[in-house]
């Protein structure tokens, strides 16, 4: 299950997380965000226990969106130990996510 992130729980769920976290910055009006949503659902299921997947609605969470300078969505950021380890913009197929996640999990 993906975690619903917001300005209030971001620190606890992402920055202080034991596991690496893949965060999807998205909004309802963004077609590519909607099209990539099933892929993220699969990833959250298949990587359970190794990686957390969280979705942050940019319309409802201005503070976090501004803090990370999000100007295009979907933006995906992978956090580990509170740090940004990787960032990409735009919808991607599952394989592309797996490559990026693999790089980080193998560290």
């Amino acid at each position: 299950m993906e975690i619903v992130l917001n300005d209030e729980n971001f620190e606890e769920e992402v920055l202080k997380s034991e596991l690496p976290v893949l965060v999807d910055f998205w909004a309802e009006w963004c077609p590519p965000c909607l099209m990539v949503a099933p892929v993220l659902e699969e990833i959250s299921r298949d990587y359970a226990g190794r990686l957390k997947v969280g979705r942050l609605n940019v319309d409802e969470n201005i503070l976090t969106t501004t803090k990370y300078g999000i100007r295009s969505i979907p933006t995906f950021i992978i956090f580990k130990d509170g740090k940004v380890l990787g960032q990409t913009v735009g919808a991607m197929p599952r394989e592309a996510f797996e490559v990026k996640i693999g790089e980080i999990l193998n560290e």
Partner: protein
Amino acid sequence: MSEYDVIIIGGGPAGLTAGLYTARSKMKTLLLEKMVFGGQAAIATTIENYPGFPKGIEGIDLMNRTREQAEKYGLEIKSGEVVKVSLSSEDERSGSPLEKKIVKTSEEYKAIALIMATGTKPRKLVVPGEERLIGRGVSYCATCDGPLFKNRKVVVVGGGDTAVEEALFLSRFAEKTTLIHRRDELRATKIIQERAISNPKMEFVWKSIVTEVLGEAEVKGVKVRNLETGKDLILETKGVFVCIGTVPNTEFLKGVVEMDGEGFIITDENMETSIKGIYACGDVRKKLLRQVVTACGEGATAGFAAGQYVGKWKGG
């Protein structure tokens, strides 16, 4: 290696329509899509010129319907980027067509006929600052990013239908939308031009090009050169939306089928490329008009022609 009658590369309107036709003809068909379904059409705002929808239809809605329709008739769809297309060795039977084979990133597939519906991607400005600021104010998709620029100043570069439509969409959110165009008039369809010119939140900078995107961590402005006077000016902006045309997704097909100088695939009126049994349809074809309705029409023709080719192969 899995074998198919027809493999379609690309899941936009052209590819999905081709798949609808081949699946209905009972061809064993696989469609491969590397990103997300619907292609460029899925990120369009309301499509107003697709026949049968007098109130318009959202791009994503139209594409989801088309996909559902094709899958209903048995089209198999997989996610994957094709990195290579190659022809199998000369066929054992003389005079008969060649067999085609595709190499995917991780798997390999074989098919009798191939349909290329790989579409296009946005052309970049290729100016300093652009690459560095992608996702930080430089965007190629107003419908994806426009609302993030609420009450900000944005610029749109380009003068065609897409540029003006994107500018109109942005004007719903942005404080001011400035369209920068290299000519002194728009190329967009008249009805769209009129909407733009009469929009109080839009401004125009004519006969000018962007020579640099300014800003360190985020876009702060653009440097604009007037082509007539040669003078530079700096426009303050938070967003730069680039809509200066498209580049075909055909890198993996270089040397396989005939293309024009820009990489668009050349076909005959039946959508067949320079190689028998390989077809192309939609935006990736060299042609006059790139629209959902033309993509669908070509997809139908390509699907039908591929079906005939497969029939001949199997029958012969």
